[in-house]
């Protein structure tokens, strides 16, 4: 805490904070809990729209998907814990985000994740990847929540700061949503896991840089117990249907301190809490540890007196430990008792109304040189004129190869809703009355080179992923992963990135309904920060579109629709070269998306498309992905094999003609880049590729990981 913050807290409390209050303040004033550096930026994000029921600021956003159904979703980082203890760090990342969804009343139906590691050539990265995937798999699979979408990327900047961003999506009848704050005279029930010494001050640990001593912070990492969380989920479903709980709040970062003060702060209330009732995992825990422990799988339930017996019955049925630990009172003060002694009497608002820190942004960086380098490369090396031979190398590279080995470890079908499986583009889920598409994605390489426009490209790519599955994007959440906000250059990246989000979001009319900021992703010793990385998780609804590979015939044309001139992130990152980030015509993105959606959802005729695929890795790779995924050949005949943006679309020759003319009328660029060919035959601009060799390269990940 800064001196000025201490002084502010003292004023708010009306007294000098004692040691317990200091511990509580320390977690609540952490960057992770307070968003003190990012709040002035986050409030700029457009957050209103016709689908929005609950916007940013709650445990998770809620959108109205029609016919009385709500979808609640959120994404959160668990970067620091995962860097130290990847298995439990990632598993509790899943557990934490699931509880946010439970708090809003959602029944979790899907998980997504965005994972970033250092180069896969390093043994450390392999160890992290294996255990992070293991942690997500064991937690999600055990809970029966399908992991349906995500990304895994590698860049040496993440070597000592991996990113583990976990998203969750829940479904509920909007009529069953709990209230957004407690009332006076309600019992406070703590239910679920025991409180122990794991995760002590985890949020404070997450709000500084990682050092070579961070390994000693293992006690700041929580331990995962997915069975308990599954039992909480099932118990809350019964409780929700009978409307037995008035308001509920998960215990995550900041533990009881955060759960109690935020709940009371929202309600303008106080509470009397008997800490002696908190069931502990070990003896001898002092009060400050009880208050800041981040032990997992715990929920606070605010219950009206007469409903307590019914709540207790359900908790008992599901074998859940629980205790009535207190009651809300009118006076806005939190009184903590232990052994019948008043331990502290403290003002909840002092913990939740944390003053903003106005961080300084560096002036426009001298990027002229970088841009010049990139331009030179464009002209001399010429990404646009690179030959087809590089395609095979790029296909077998760590950021492009198939991630099958990973998502096959996730039960991505439990729930029997997963219509569009994880592989290409976004996931597609069957809801009672609509299809729902969800995608979690990023492109740090572009953001690093031009934070504002790069972020807009990320936004557009998310949009295209949802469109490619026949859904209209309706809202998104973000997980903004950046370096140390005390550095002006980092704040510049952050500010620019947020300004890019604001612009893209406004034009595409896709509001933000929540998110998370993770700062301090840097190596404290070297001061080297990660590639700045805004990770976006968007959802869309609509009729849905499923690829029809069986309908593809020899000679069917492959088109690139609305590709972006001069966009080459995948090949540039692969070659380790700087990249110029071209401007993006957002209005054009919107018009193209809406046009394609109209074609896919055509009421009268049949959808003319056989395949639609977002082109995010360059059109050569995107075409190879289709061929290898669906088992047919392609003959590419086009300049600019590595160009990104837009959609690859396969139609019949007949439908292709009318697609060209429809695009022409709307000024949507369309070019034919090749044709579907004989099975097992792949060529690009006359260069033939060995099918088996490509398959081997594409599926290289398990071998790199030492499996098979």
């Amino acid at each position, binding site marked *: 805490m800064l001196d000025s913050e201490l002084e502010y807290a003292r004023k708010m409390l009306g007294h000098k904070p004692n040691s317990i209050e200091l511990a509580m303040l320390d977690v609540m004033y952490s960057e992770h809990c307070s968003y003190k550096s990012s709040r002035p930026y986050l409030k700029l994000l457009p957050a209103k729209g016709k689908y929005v029921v609950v916007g940013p600021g709650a445990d998770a956003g809620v959108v109205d998907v029609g016919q009385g159904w709500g979808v609640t979703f959120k994404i959160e980082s668990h970067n620091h814990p995962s860097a130290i203890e990847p298995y439990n760090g990632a598993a509790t990342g899943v557990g934490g985000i699931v509880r946010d969804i439970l708090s809003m009343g959602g029944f979790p139906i899907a998980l997504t994740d965005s994972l970033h590691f250092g180069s896969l050539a390093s043994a450390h990265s392999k160890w992290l990847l294996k255990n992070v995937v293991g942690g997500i*798999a*064991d937690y999600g*699979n*055990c*809970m*029966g929540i399908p992991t349906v979408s995500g990304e895994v990327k590698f860049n040496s900047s993440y070597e000592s700061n991996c990113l583990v961003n976990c998203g969750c999506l829940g479904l509920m009848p909007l009529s069953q949503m709990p209230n957004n704050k407690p009332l006076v005279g309600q019992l406070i029930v703590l239910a679920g896991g025991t409180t122990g010494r794991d995760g002590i001050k985890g949020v404070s640990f997450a709000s500084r840089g990682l050092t070579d001593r961070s390994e000693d912070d293992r006690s700041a990492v929580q331990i995962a*117990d*997915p*069975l308990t969380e*599954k*039992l909480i989920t099932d118990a809350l479903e019964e409780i929700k249907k009978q409307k037995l709980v008035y308001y509920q709040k998960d215990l995550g970062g900041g533990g009881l301190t955060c759960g109690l003060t935020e709940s009371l702060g929202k309600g303008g209330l106080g509470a009397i809490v008997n800490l002696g009732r908190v069931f502990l995992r070990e003896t001898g825990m002092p009060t400050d540890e009880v208050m800041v422990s981040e032990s997992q799988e715990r929920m606070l339930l605010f219950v009206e007196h007469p409903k307590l017996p019914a709540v207790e019955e359900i908790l008992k*049925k*599901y*074998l859940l430990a629980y205790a009535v630990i207190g009651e809300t009172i009118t006076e806005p003060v939190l009184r903590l008792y232990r052994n019948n002694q008043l331990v502290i009497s403290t003002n909840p608002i002092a913990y939740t109304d944390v003053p903003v820190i106005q961080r300084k942004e560096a002036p426009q960086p001298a990027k002229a040189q970088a841009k010049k380098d990139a331009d030179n490369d464009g002209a001399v090396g010429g990404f646009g004129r690179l030959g087809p031979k590089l395609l095979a190398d790029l296909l077998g590279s760590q950021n492009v190869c198939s991630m099958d080995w990973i*998502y*096959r*470890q*996730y*039960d*991505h*079908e*439990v*729930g*029997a809703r*997963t*219509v569009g*499986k994880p592989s290409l583009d976004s996931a597609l889920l*069957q809801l009672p009355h609509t299809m729902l598409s969800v995608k979690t994605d990023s492109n740090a390489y572009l953001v690093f080179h031009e934070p504002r426009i790069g972020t807009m490209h990320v936004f557009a790519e998310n949009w295209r992923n949802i469109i490619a599955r026949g859904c209209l994007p309706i809202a998104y959440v973000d997980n903004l992963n950046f370096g140390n906000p005390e550095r002006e250059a980092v704040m510049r990246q952050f500010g620019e990135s947020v300004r890019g989000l604001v612009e893209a979001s406004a034009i595409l009319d896709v509001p933000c309904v929540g998110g998370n900021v993770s700062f301090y992703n840097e190596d404290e010793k070297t001061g080297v920060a990660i590639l700045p990385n805004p990770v976006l998780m968007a959802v869309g609804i609509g009729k849905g579109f*499923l690829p029809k590979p069986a309908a593809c015939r020899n000679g069917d044309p492959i088109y690139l629709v609305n590709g972006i001139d001069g966009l080459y992130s995948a090949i540039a990152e692969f070659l380790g070269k700087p990249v110029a980030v071209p401007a993006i015509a957002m209005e054009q993105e919107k018009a193209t998306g809406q046009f394609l959606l109209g074609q896919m959802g055509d009421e009268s005729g049949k959808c003319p498309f056989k395949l639609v695929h977002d082109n995010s890795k360059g059109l050569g790779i995107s075409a190879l992905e289709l061929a290898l995924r669906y088992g047919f050949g392609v003959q590419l005949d086009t300049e600019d094999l590595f160009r990104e943006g837009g959609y690859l679309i396969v139609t019949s020759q007949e439908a292709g003609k009318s697609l060209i003319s429809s695009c022409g009328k709307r000024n949507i660029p369309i070019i034919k880049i090749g044709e579907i060919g004989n099975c097992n035959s792949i060529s690009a601009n006359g260069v033939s590729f060995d099918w088996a060799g490509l398959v081997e390269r594409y599926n290289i990940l398990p071998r790199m990981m030492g*499996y*098979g």
Partner: protein
Amino acid sequence: MSSHSEGLVGVVKFPGSNCDLDSVNALKSLGLGAELVWHTDFPKRIGDFTAIYIPGGFSYGDHLRAGVIAAFSPSLKAIRDFAKKGGRVLGVCNGFQILVESGLLPGALARNDTNTFICKWVGLELMENVSFLSPSTLPVTRNPKLISLPIANGEGKYMADEKTLERLKENKQIVFTYSSNPNGSALSIAGICNEAGNVVGMMPHPERAITPELGGTDGKEILLRAFKL
């Protein structure tokens, strides 16, 4: 109480079951009577059911070993009595693990050879067998009798001693085998039945294969054949 004329499948839910709703929904979508029952309520309700379905999931979090804790639940005693009288019991995935752990089916299910969880669609051959899912009752016209269903498990490798495997073969107790063994299962076994043929355990998930959108419909016939009166 529901009418018994159409039959009523009791779907038993343990702490940690997670394919329970999928299973009930699948059965109902096929026009079958199905009811989800909490495991402690199961013994007193068992008389209401014409058949029993033990769904997949992670009963008791797979603590100790998949299925072993649920096998000691009072509901398993009731299910054993039900089976002894010839009642049909189908255990899927964790349900299969529970049936094996409770001794209703022979053998054991161990960690997959890949040492990972495996979620994918697999080809299965329906064998000549003595269960209610024999090829004569299941109208699989394709030849060989190949069907496609998804698996999703970490401990799905079927194991048994040589004598048991011999007996399974001789008695025609092997119900399904994998076309391409994904996990090192003995004899590529994906599902077996007891000697009487009224208790079947299988690792693949029929309840996830009932619409083309979900990836296939081969699960439909299996559920209908198992539970339609």
